[in-house]
């Protein structure tokens, strides 16, 4: 039986043909992956199926019946559920409130919260997805938030589950958990549509794989009859192997030295419990760890957003008493934030305006406080070329750039500033293969120039591939220090979960 069929779906956005006559046919009970680079049209297609977008033309069949899905409400009625890439959760609500929203147990008009709690508990037990029903979503790690999302759609009796890039924000362990869940759901007879650009994962979990490129369907392959390399070629349209280039470290003097750093989190609890480490010129120090184990606090302290409770940060041999973003940047720090929209860019600004942010007070961009448009435009044009930001138009607003191009714009901005130290927080988050490759190359380039780099990442392969030294952060402490050649992903994974500690190499 076909769970879902789409025929000739076309979606035209102003200036972009996002989906170009796409035909897919998905069997009941299979895990069906759709892969493609960012902007290939995967999410658009799913949003059409879920009723968030209206297709320009085309037909949809659910369980062999032609349907007309206008709103998510229709989709839910057809037992289609979707876990969005950006979680659709109300941060201030509890797990239970989030799960039952839209279909609440009630006595008359009164919301029966007790009943909802027990329902959620039951549900979580039934599907073996452990959550605390009374906890606020804002306080949960990403992996658990995703569970809430899954429970939400399961509660509505979804038979077809769409996962839009579900692993983009997960740790390896969480990903593994998710895969277990997916397999279990498949066993229960649910149909799963799995959207990703991570070919390794797709190969691990999917039964069949459809490849999209620039809005067009490139082909559908069965897992057994293909390979990662072949898929990659289909996705990118040329031969690529995602290989992280290696470069020998020419290590120089210590640039940043952190001692006994203790930092409170936004919620007021101590999130970083006294860590010490050095970053030297020309090396990449990788910080591995599951999200929420002190990374945010570390970043905030280094960039001057949060004042540490205790401990010192020494930059270039000088201890900094009060750190503000202004003075630390003046000393020579560049920062690639994990959240592009929140910390990286001013979305309504044009590329030319974004690219000078942070160095706008410097010559030649301005003199005596007066901006020099000609110099700015010249610079922006050059950098857009150099960092391959598309479109090349320096007047494009950042909001209209794709994720990858936004990231490139940030790189262009940060790396063109004079800096000795680069703080890269999940620099490849949500990027496709091409963009990732680009970021890796840039990081290596930086390293070869003698910049000290602190790389915080949840992707173990990234940490293993790029770092010269690896620190493992668990529960606000550094529980291990190692180098890529002395460890394995498995060992790191255990340390990240606090199951294994390693004596630190002497500082």
């Amino acid at each position, binding site marked *: 039986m076909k769970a879902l069929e789409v025929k000739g779906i076309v979606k035209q956005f*102003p200036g972009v043909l996002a989906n170009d006559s796409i035909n897919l046919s998905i069997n009941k009970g299979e895990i069906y992956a759709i892969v493609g680079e960012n902007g290939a049209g995967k999410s658009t297609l799913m949003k059409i199926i879920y009723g968030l977008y209206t297709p320009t033309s085309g037909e949809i069949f659910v369980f062999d019946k032609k349907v007309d899905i206008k709103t998510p409400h229709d989709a839910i009625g057809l037992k289609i559920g979707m876990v969005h890439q950006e979680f659709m959760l109300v941060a201030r609500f509890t797990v239970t409130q989030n799960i039952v929203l839209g279909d609440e147990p009630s006595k008359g008009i009164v919301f029966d919260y007790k009943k909802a709690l027990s329902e959620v508990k039951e549900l979580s037990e039934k599907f073996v997805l452990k959550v605390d029903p009374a906890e606020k979503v804002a306080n949960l790690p990403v992996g658990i938030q995703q569970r809430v999302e899954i429970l939400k759609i399961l509660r509505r009796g979804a038979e077809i589950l769409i996962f839009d890039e579900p692993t983009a924000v997960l740790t390896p362990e969480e990903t593994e958990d998710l895969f277990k869940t997916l397999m279990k759901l498949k066993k229960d007879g649910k149909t799963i549509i799995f959207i990703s650009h991570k070919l390794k994962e797709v190969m691990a979990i999917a039964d069949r794989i459809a490849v999209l490129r620039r809005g067009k369907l490139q082909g559908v392959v069965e897992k057994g009859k293909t390979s990662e390399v072949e898929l990659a070629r289909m996705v990118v349209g040329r031969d690529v192997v995602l290989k992280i280039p290696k470069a020998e470290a020419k290590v120089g003097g210590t640039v940043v030295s952190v001692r006994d750093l203790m930092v409170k989190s936004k919620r007021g609890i101590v999130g970083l419990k006294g860590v010490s480490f050095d970053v030297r010129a020309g090396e990449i120090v990788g910080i591995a760890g599951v999200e929420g184990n002190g990374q945010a606090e570390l970043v905030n302290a280094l960039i001057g*957003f949060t004042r540490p409770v205790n401990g010192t940060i020494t930059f270039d041999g000088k201890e900094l008493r009060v750190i503000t*973003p*202004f003075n*630390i940047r003046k000393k020579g720090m560049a920062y690639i934030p994990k959240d592009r929209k*929140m910390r990286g860019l*001013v979305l309504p600004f044009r590329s030319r305006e974004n690219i000078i*942010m942070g160095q706008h007070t410097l010559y030649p961009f301005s003199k005596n406080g007066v*901006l020099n448009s000609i110099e700015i435009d010249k610079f922006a044009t050059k950098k857009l070329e150099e960092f391959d930001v598309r479109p090349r138009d320096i007047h494009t607003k950042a909001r209209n750039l794709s994720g990858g191009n936004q990231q490139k714009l940030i790189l262009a901005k940060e790396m063109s500033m004079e800096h000795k130290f680069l703080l890269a927080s999940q620099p490849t988050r949500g990027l496709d293969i091409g963009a990732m490759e680009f970021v890796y190359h840039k990081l290596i380039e930086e390293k070869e120039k003698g910049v000290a780099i602190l790389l915080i990442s949840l992707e173990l392969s990234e940490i293993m591939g790029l770092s010269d030294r690896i620190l493992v952060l668990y529960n606000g402490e550094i529980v291990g220090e190692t180098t890529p050649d002395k460890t394995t992903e498995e060992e790191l994974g255990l340390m990240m979960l606090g199951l294994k500690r390693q004596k630190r190499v002497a500082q």
Partner: protein
Amino acid sequence: MKDVLKRIVFGKREKYWWMNALVPLISILLAFIVGAIFIKITGRSPVVAYKLLFGASGLFPGPYWKSHFAEMLLSSSMYIATGLGFAIAAKGGLFNIGAEGHFIVGGIAAAYLGYAKPFAGLPKFIHLPLIIVGVMLAGGIWGAIAGYLKAKRGIHEVITTIMLNWIALYLIEAWLVTGPMKAAVETGVSGTPYISLSAKLPKIFPPTRLNISIIIILAVTFLVWYLFYKTTFGYEIRTMGHTLIFGMEAPKAAGINVERRTIQTMFIAGAVAALGGAFMILGVLFQYPPIFEGGYGFDGIAVALIGQNEPLGVILAGILIGALRTGATTVQLAHIPKTFPSIIEGFTVAFIALQMLIRYWIMKFVMRKKKSIQSEMGGGAK
């Protein structure tokens, strides 16, 4: 509160940049049409009303045009000042309801510096600039209080500016004007003493009252434009404007001192709005009266919104409102209440708020011409 800044910037790079000028124009036109219907419904003649209104607005030549024109510019300079007060703060992501307070603080400062002894004896070319600087300082400090509380204590500027308006009003009218700054009895006036001759703004269009206030405010508007778009300071304010209200931290992460800029933005907003109060005292009333009854501050919000928070737009909107208000009292000759122009002002702002709809209409019109199938508008247009 957060959406003050989701505004469309004038710019030729936009595909339909002319829309940014067309939308306010159509809004104003629609407002006049609805105003006409309204006046008809209430049993009066729209033609007579508009004839009187425009005849006395100073916008069109006619009898007594000279004095109407002068009065219009005199009003406009004050509306532009308070409009800028709102627009400047809005550019920096702040919602400033405090222009009313800044206006009266500027007024009382102008009155004091205008009559008080050490200053009153100075020659005009020293005295007047001194007053202007003093007024801007006073208004700026009053504005900066709200900025400080926002930056350092996180208190919403809407609350503080509302409260500071009232505090300013009561401290001035129920203390300063009736207490330490009361005029001596023998002069025959209540309120503060009159300002000295050297403090009065020079007239530029005799025999009318028009004085250099319009020149000052145009110069200030130019400076504000320059500040916004040509300096690093303005650049930083604009980064904040696009992010502050959404809780985004990009400017802060880029090393911009958001807290200090917040205070400075409110300082400038207060200083410019205070100029309006100074124009009132130095060019019209020559003293701070016992009861001021402004309203220029709140109308400034409408001026800024009609002008899309852009300096040039604020000038044009200021002139529009100034003209409406100048013509307002004359419509009473036809027994139409003086508040009629406020109705038009309200409708104009309402249609500006409905600009998505107006844009949709225009686009449909344009698209039909272009025979294009794609709607450029999207949005709630369903």
